């Protein structure tokens, strides 16, 4: 065997593995998305070209609604999580008694089962017997409908998501902060920089790669958030919290429209890809 051929041979197993578990399912889904295929009817799938995509674009107000709900939910929750996560990390990036305990407690939401938490939050949000309205009362604020109101349902879900995922952002950015060298800070302090300047001109630029990485991670995850929303609202009231992934779920597993659901999932896949490319672009632009 030649020296030049050997490396290719060594990557072959990994190559075939990737083809089998990544490329094949994606391509197969693309193929199905070009057919009309109902799992309930004993007819084979029929080739209909791009008709499923055309349906999405023109005929389906539910799809448009799901798209907007997804962007609203993901955009706002990821933005809050990033800002809050960095702030928490900055707060915890010092030595104090019980630091380990605080960090562990903050990580509980990430470590738990989403479905169990979702059931707890659903009960907490119940306008008649949930604890959230009790808190509102103690604070002298009016009762809310929370998950039962068309305009309050997404903010309520965002609050739940922020509670669950901010600790992850905190953990990753905190790790980046702790690995930073101390010399730039010492130099800046000698030059008379205050804590705000230190954070803005030293910490933030240095942890930027970690922030962008966690942003990409959260965007990917958030677009695919299923269990929390399914268990708390099932997309309701009406379709007010029906994100794309819940929409796909209904189309595929309740209405059994496999072809159309595949087309929607391809669109979702492209959206996630686009959002991650945007993060990569931002990161390069910032560097």
């Amino acid at each position, binding site marked *: 065997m030649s020296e030049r051929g050997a490396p290719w041979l060594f990557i072959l197993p990994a190559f075939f593995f990737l083809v089998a578990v990544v490329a094949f399912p994606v391509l197969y889904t693309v193929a199905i998305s070009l057919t009309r295929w109902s799992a309930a009817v004993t007819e084979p799938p029929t080739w209909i070209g791009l008709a499923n995509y055309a349906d999405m674009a023109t005929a389906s107000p539910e799809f448009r609604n799901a798209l907007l709900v997804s962007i609203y939910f993901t955009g706002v929750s990821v933005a809050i999580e990033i800002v809050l996560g960095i702030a928490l990390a900055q707060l915890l990036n010092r030595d104090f008694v019980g630091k380990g305990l605080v960090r562990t407690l903050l990580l509980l939401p990430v470590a738990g089962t989403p479905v169990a938490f979702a059931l707890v939050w659903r009960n907490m949000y119940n306008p008649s017997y949930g604890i959230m309205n009790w808190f509102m009362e103690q604070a002298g604020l009016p009762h809310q409908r929370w998950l*039962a109101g068309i305009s309050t349902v997404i903010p309520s879900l965002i609050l739940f998501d922020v509670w669950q995922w901010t600790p992850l952002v905190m953990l990753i950015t905190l790790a980046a902060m702790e690995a930073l060298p101390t010399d730039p800070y010492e130099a800046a302090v000698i030059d008379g920089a205050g804590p705000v300047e230190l954070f803005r001109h030293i910490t933030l630029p240095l942890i930027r790669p970690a922030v962008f990485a966690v942003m990409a991670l959260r965007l990917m995850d958030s677009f695919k958030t299923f269990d929390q929303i399914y268990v708390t609202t099932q997309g309701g009231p009406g379709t007010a919290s029906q994100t794309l992934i819940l929409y796909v779920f209904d189309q595929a597993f309740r209405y059994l429209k496999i072809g159309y659901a595949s087309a929607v999932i391809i669109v979702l896949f492209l959206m996630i890809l686009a959002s991650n490319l945007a993060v990569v672009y931002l990161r390069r632009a910032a560097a």
Partner: protein
Amino acid sequence: MKRSLRFVELPRFGGPVLIGILLVALAMPAASQPRFDWKQAQGTEIRVLALRAWFTDHFKERLPEFERLTGIKVIFEDYPEDALRQKLAVEMAARNRAIDLFHTGTSFEGRRFFTSGWYADLNPLIRDPSATSPDWDSSDFFDSVWAAQRFGDLQVSVPLQAVTQVLFYRKDLFEAAGVRPPGTLDELEEAARRLHQPPAVYGFTSRGRRTQAPYSWAHFLYAHGGSWLSPEGGAGIASPAAVSATARYARILRSFGDPGVADNGPIEVQTLFAQGRAAMILDAASWAGVFDNPDRSRVVGKWAVSAAPRGLAGVTYELWAWSMAISPFSQKKRAAWLFLQWATSKEMQRPLQVRGFPMPRNSLWADPEWRAKVEPSWLHTVLLQFRTAKPIGHPPVVAAAEVIDAVGTAISRTLAGGDPKAELDAAARTMNALLR
């Protein structure tokens, strides 16, 4: 005196003899007829896709008895309702031979399963005396419940339980306020108004969640003279009757319901009533057991039941039943049928009836000992409704899930403040596209 004494003494000597003769007479036909062979499928293993529910727990508990009786091993896989439906659809579409029996709600997915050929016909088994035990007695099931298990000439399933919606009300609150239990929807609205003391007690609450609202709303639809389908076979859900029914449903709930009504599923409705936070609910008759259980209810002894109220167009009691069916792809239909008979036998259904779950067999409702113990208003109402209930279909179309979601969205949005006419028109457009 002497004569009457002798007359009295007769049973003392004659009794045992008479009983002996009777016993011999009873044993005779059994001896002359070949006994039903429960061991005919010995050594088989069958798999059941089941709903996670009280009746499934009951079957699982008693499974060792069945395995001793028949020598058949049963594997239960149970899922919550939505997950079961998804699992079933995927397995059936793949024609999986490994599933022998499954739980099904024929009023909901029956038409889709029937048109897709996902039910085995039970008639050949029921008619075959070597396959069906004479004790099983299919004529014992309520006609209305049995009718819900038939599509065309096919007998697709056997009922595991049956439910109609009844009006649960707080008799203590009604008495204190001097209000009579409502017989009509107008009276329901008036009673809700008088008993509404938020946030301590809401006058009337019900289901409002997209997938759940149509179940409770349908009673209002029928009572207003509406129906799922128009006489021409199109969508009937935006007719004037349907719009007025929806407007009434939303008006009562927005005025006298709990603030979370647009998101209420069965758990919320049940919790609100069990916690004493609702004066009335219109929901599943099978909840009586929960409301009578001091561990789960604060209203033990404080509630009663009356029939679901009439509207201007009279009243229709809709039937819902969970049933068990055999997969057409099963290779072990005989063994599956033996299990189905055992699970739906009088002996297996009786303990559930005693626990307050209404069962679909006539004979179980006649037991005087049990009748003496249950809340009388519940007994009479449920029995009356069972005898006259109609298995309409929920809804009576193949694309049931899509139609339920479209209508449920309209109801849920109306509950959140939308206009019923506009919302139902949108739902009817979706439904008509599905019916085409």
